[in-house]
């Protein structure tokens, strides 16, 4: 999707259209830009930029808060549209997915025709534009989709992979990060073509075993198989920066509960399991600490995450210094569904888990059911 968060704001608020929209913290606070519209990008604003900098670059910008709830709602709608096209969908982020269209030409026509239909469906149902890349594999499809944003449609036909790759910059290769780019530059490799002249052992010597293999394959248009199966999420986490530093335990507890709720929702939504819970705290002076613990069984409820996280927090926090940020997450997330063991007894945690699953599934359908103690936050969201 193109400038996903900002575009949703422009659809929901027609008066924002054609104007620089910056989603994130409010100017004057000290958060960062989460996303911005293409109009804002022309001012030099980009995501992760401190909001103060964005404001000085683009004083005419419309600064709006993040409405994650709404973006997730739109995301689910788009993912459902994808489902109408193929059951073989691999969602890789809130606004990106791979669709395996192998063998669907009888149904939808040529790949290009299919992509046009897909874009039209998305536009019709959400008012948003999407950029589509068509290619024989995922690596190239991703590169192609980024090639002509916004509202792009780029097809790399079988047999033309190398020709296409030679037209793009090294840094456009998906998965090739800043550090590798710098390493390659140090060895005077600045184009994809140059990269392809090096054999596998040499590349591995320069950039390590797996890095070398990746470069060798990617420069030849071969998918290194990063997303060749299910997505392997290692951890799920979320964090909150306080608007002003705080040492008020009640408000910190409140944030921890909110984060626990978010994490449990995401675990439940995907059917993932995790036994390991970690917290992160950052003091005013940016000293950052983490702590983690592993339970004997996968977490079942928000309460369980919250109680565990609170225990970790109480051990880690000195109790007197102000905090700038708290974060919470689960790691070693098991994405493969393990067969369920039938229980002899239902304990209270299992019962709570059942109730919570029901609540979460309502929420996933757009309902605003939430914990009473988190109601204030919901009110803030819908302001």
């Amino acid at each position, binding site marked *: 999707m193109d400038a996903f968060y900002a575009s949703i704001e422009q659809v929901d608020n027609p008066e924002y259209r054609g104007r620089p929209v910056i989603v994130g913290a409010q100017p004057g606070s000290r958060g960062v830009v989460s996303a911005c519209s293409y109009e804002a990008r022309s001012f030099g604003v980009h995501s992760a930029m401190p909001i103060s900098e964005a404001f000085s670059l683009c004083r005419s910008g419309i600064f709006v808060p993040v409405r994650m709830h709404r973006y997730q709602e739109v995301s689910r709608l788009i993912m459902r549209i994808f489902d109408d096209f193929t059951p073989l969908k691999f969602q890789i982020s809130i606004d990106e997915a791979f669709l395996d269209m192998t063998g669907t030409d009888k149904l939808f026509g040529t790949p290009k025709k299919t992509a046009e239909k897909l874009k039209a469906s998305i536009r019709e149902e959400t008012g948003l534009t999407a950029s589509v890349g068509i290619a024989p594999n995922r690596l190239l499809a991703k590169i192609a989709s980024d090639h002509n944003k916004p509202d792009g449609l780029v097809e790399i036909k079988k047999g033309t992979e190398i020709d296409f790759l030679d037209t793009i910059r090294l840094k456009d290769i998906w998965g090739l990060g800043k550090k590798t780019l710098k390493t390659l530059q140090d060895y005077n490799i600045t184009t994809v073509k140059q990269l392809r002249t090096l054999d596998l052992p040499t590349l591995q010597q320069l950039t390590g075993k797996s890095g070398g293999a990746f470069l060798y394959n990617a420069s030849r248009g071969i998918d290194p198989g990063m997303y060749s199966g299910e997505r392997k999420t290692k951890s799920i986490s979320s964090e909150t920066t306080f608007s002003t530093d705080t040492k008020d335990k009640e408000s910190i507890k409140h944030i921890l509960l909110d984060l626990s709720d978010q994490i449990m929702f995401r675990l439940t939504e995907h059917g993932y399991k995790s036994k390991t819970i970690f917290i992160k705290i950052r003091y005013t002076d940016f000293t950052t600490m983490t702590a983690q613990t592993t*339970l*004997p*069984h996968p977490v079942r409820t928000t309460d*369980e995450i919250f109680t565990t996280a609170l225990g970790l927090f109480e051990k880690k926090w000195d109790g007197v210094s102000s905090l700038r940020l708290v974060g919470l997450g689960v790691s070693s997330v*098991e994405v493969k569904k*393990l*067969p*369920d*063991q*039938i*229980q*002899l*007894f239902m*304990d209270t*945690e299992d019962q709570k888990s059942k109730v919570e699953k029901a609540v979460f599934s309502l929420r996933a359908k757009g309902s605003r059911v939430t914990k009473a103690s988190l109601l204030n936050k919901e009110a803030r969201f819908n302001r």
Partner: protein
Amino acid sequence: MKFTCNKDLIIKEISIAQEIISSRNSISILSNVLLEADGNTLTIRATDLKVGFETKIPVDSTHSGSTTVYCDKFLSILRSLPDGDIEFSYLDDNRLMIKPLFNKIDFKLKSINADKYPELQNISDDKYFQIPQKEFIDMISQTIFSVSDDETRYYMNGVYLEHENNTLSMVATDGRRLSFMKTPSNAENVTFDPVIIPTKILQLIRKLSTGEGNLSLAVNENNIFIKFNNQKLFSNLIKGQFPNYKRVIPETQEYTVEVQRVALIEALKRVSLLVEQKSRRIFITFLENTIILSSEESEIGIAKEEVSCSFIGPETTIALNYLYLVEPLRVIDDDTIIIKFTEANKAITLVPTTDKGYFHIVMPMQLD
């Protein structure tokens, strides 16, 4: 205090004491073992406050008295000494001298005064009742492996002991499987509410028991007490509500399968090699007079084995955690066992062919 004692005799008791003493890093009076010589008897005591141990051994004592020493080092010293008799004497400077007879070795261990040592929990003698050691050990062995190690379900971290209608029974469960054994009790006048016993004390009982004669048992609200000949143990109990286990014991089950116990264990061991190690799911299929054990097809491969049995009924496949099969099979004391089941998502029961008062219930896993 001064006494002489044979090395092996005292090591045996001190090593039990050391097992009880809390292994925490900080050293305190609880890291010490109490020694008390009185006449020709040495009393040894150890406790971590949750579990306590007292034993009496015969010694040659010339001066009565008592003291406490750091048990860990005391045991290491005793183990290092040559075989034979050792003389222990309490010196005026608060130290215990350990000196093997006819050797030029002497250790002086700092001590803490015995009156600082915590009292052990006690119960009056008339509360004790007798039970054959073998019966009690069997009960422990048949149940202890089913205890949950999930500390958040602390009330399943021990074995449930119940005494009603002249029957003593033990139950253990981790919420997915359950083991039960009962034995007739002739302690007619003894009554106590059911209690949950931590596994540490049960393992100690198993270790101390000779398997012959009786042991004495007493239970009150907070503790369990056990007496062997010259050894006494106590342990705190787990406070909590044990699940209503009677409700989950199947009243009747549709089908029974009789099979050689060892043959089934061996087959399980082989097939489990290729079972997915996280879920440990194995498939057990009952056909006419045949059991088929199989693993899931994985990246590594697949395993399948047939075991003959006596069974007549519809073909049924049940998915189970193989450990939940192997563990009870290991302790069932019979050549042949009976597996009872009704259908794929209901509990199965494992019992010896001849009734011995125990059974094991296992909940299946999802088939797909």
